């Protein structure tokens, strides 16, 4: 049986069960998936990322797995002692491994949430990301939405503990297809920090197709750190969709270091005046890895600010893609929207495709965008070497210097030093 047949069989099984309020949403998504299929290079948004290859291997759809707490320990992020931890194993929420510490935080299955007190929030917000991701991959995730998780951060409270989201793929025994799905609702005046990361156990092939939707209410402040440092057999499509429905502040940083084929869709819609969004990304690639960042910033309302800076360092035969769209809708006057993408290629075989796209329908706006692709500065290299610094160290210092203005945006000290350590390992140099 191939992967697609596995998926179809599983869908029929789940749909025959009762009490699923999300049935029609799922059926529509499944029909859309059947119609559109896995996106090929002919799809405008998938030109450089051939996700179809991932499906050539037989993948098992969300196989059950047991991860022991000891095994989890090796994968936990620093600072976990104080964090709320939400753990998915092969895309399925694990109650036993997760740990909710803050009373402001409620975590439920979407199936449950869509029926209870949160049903209105769920029906209003689940699937909102569809409008930016019109493809079979996204539909495939939605077809199984009720297995996902709803996270509620309550009114006016400040969650003093960050929320760590782990996606663990257990590929020790079989090839895995995982599909985590989350809807997060951040209430008014809440202040919250997320860190999300992926780990794979074992060396079988895996593919994670994740959709995370985050609704941000008035005066809320959300930081979101995504750290991708997975195995080369682990491919992923991660869609993170922020809706700023109130005047709010978001700060998103995506750090991609390792993985097989990685596609990130980060969509931000500014739907309330004076909302502010900051997006930073660093991809530092080696080997044959492929990382594709597609971002959409949609200015729906006036007087909002968005600022985006993505930087890439690409070595060996790795490939990177950056596609940044900014929409400024007709009523979004006084928009400030900035975007920049800068790349350095460290080898002949490395490549990057970068494409900014601005669609501006309002006239009183300030927008800028720019992209660069270059090499390490030879003059700088000579300057450092002339001071006795070996060529390798000089290169590392220059690469680090290039990356630093993204790293600086990893604000929690404990995560910053974790990311720094990963970067230093990659650069193979010590700092004392």
């Amino acid at each position, binding site marked *: 049986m191939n992967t697609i047949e596995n998926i179809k069989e599983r869908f029929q099984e789940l749909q025959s069960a009762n009490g699923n309020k999300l049935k029609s949403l799922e059926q529509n998504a499944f029909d859309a998936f059947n119609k559109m299929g896995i996106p090929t290079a002919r799809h405008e948004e998938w030109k450089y990322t051939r996700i179809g290859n991932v499906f050539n291997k037989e993948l098992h759809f969300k196989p059950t797995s047991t991860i022991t707490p000891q095994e989890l320990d090796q994968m936990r992020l620093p600072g976990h002692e104080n964090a709320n931890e939400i753990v998915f194993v092969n895309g399925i929420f694990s109650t036993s491994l997760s740990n909710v510490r803050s009373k402001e935080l409620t975590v439920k299955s979407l199936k449950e949430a869509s029926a209870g007190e949160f049903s209105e929030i769920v029906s209003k917000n689940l699937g909102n990301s569809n409008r930016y991701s019109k493809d079979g991959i996204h539909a495939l995730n939605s077809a199984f939405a009720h297995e996902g998780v709803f996270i509620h951060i309550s009114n006016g409270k400040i969650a003093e503990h960050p929320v760590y989201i782990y996606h663990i793929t257990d590929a020790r025994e079989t090839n895995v297809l995982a599909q985590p799905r989350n809807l997060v609702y951040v209430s008014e005046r809440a202040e919250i920090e997320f860190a999300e990361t992926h780990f794979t156990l074992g060396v079988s092939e895996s593919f994670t197709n994740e959709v995370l939707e985050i609704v941000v209410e008035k005066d809320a402040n959300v930081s979101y750190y995504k750290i991708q440092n997975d195995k080369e057999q682990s491919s992923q499509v991660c869609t993170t969709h922020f809706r700023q429905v109130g005047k709010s502040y978001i700060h998103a940083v995506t750090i991609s270091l390792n993985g097989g084929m990685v596609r990130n869709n980060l969509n931000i819609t500014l739907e309330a005046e004076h909302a502010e969004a900051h997006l930073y990304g660093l991809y530092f690639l080696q080997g044959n890895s492929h990382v594709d960042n597609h971002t959409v910033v949609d200015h729906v309302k006036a007087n909002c600010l968005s600022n985006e800076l993505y930087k890439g360092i690409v070595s060996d035969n790795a490939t990177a893609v950056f596609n940044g769209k900014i929409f400024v809708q007709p009523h979004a006057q006084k928009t400030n929207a900035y975007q920049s993408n800068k790349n350095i290629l460290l080898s002949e075989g490395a490549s990057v495709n970068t494409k900014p796209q601005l669609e501006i329908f309002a006239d009183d706006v300030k927008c800028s965008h720019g992209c660069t692709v270059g090499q390490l500065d030879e003059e700088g290299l*000579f300057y450092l070497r*002339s001071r*006795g610094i070996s*060529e390798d*160290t000089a290169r590392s*210092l*220059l690469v680090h*210097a290039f990356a630093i203005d993204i790293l600086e945006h990893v604000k929690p000290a404990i995560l910053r030093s974790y990311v720094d350590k990963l970067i230093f390992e990659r650069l193979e140099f010590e700092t004392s």
Partner: protein
Amino acid sequence: MLSIRNLHAGIEEKKILKGLNLEINAGEVHAIMGPNGSGKSTLASVLAGREHYEVSEGSVEFLGKNLLELSPEARAGEGLFLAFQYPIEIAGLTTTNFIKTAVNEIRKYRGEQPLDAVQFLKMMKEKMALMNIDQSLLSRSLNEGFSGGEKKRNEIFQMAMLQPKLAILDETDSGLDIDAIRIVANGVNKLRNKDNAVLLVTHYQRLLDYIVPDFVHVLYNGQIVKSGPKELALELEERGYDFIKNEVNAAQEA
């Protein structure tokens, strides 16, 4: 210490140095003057090991080693230092971090233990005071947004930190205000001893009032065409380069 013999060097098709000879001994200060474009910075770059210059003929010996065979970092390790005419800006790398790496890489090259944080800070403080440089400048990205004078002072600060055997100062005085020239000169003088040497590239006699050279050389058309005592600099200041050019041309015609 440094012995340059019949050095020919250029870039791509262009010949810039055309048979240059120069001998520098420990304890000496040499000044090189010469019209714009005569090859002074080229000489400095070739000595420091900048890659895109090609040496087609001649030899350079530094402290008994064939300098031209060494990588730029090994030259620094052996004790060569070049203060750049145009120091490079590097965003994202603090001067402190840079200089600490440099100090310890050079120590490593010489088989010495790296300085620990306390030793390093002590040395930094000392040299900062010597060069009248502020901590805030060193916490910033290397040369980024530094004024012309600040960049030059930073070069000499680096020299003070690395304690080279031979320091080549390429127009370090250009762009410095009168006080800064005195500070830089004072710094250089304090670092002088019988075991090291200085090669100054300058256009102005003024610097030589503070750092008194043992020899003044005139570089013209890729060669050292005249050498003399410090008074030669005064003469050049007064008369310009024409009399030298005329001498050279007359000699060539003869």
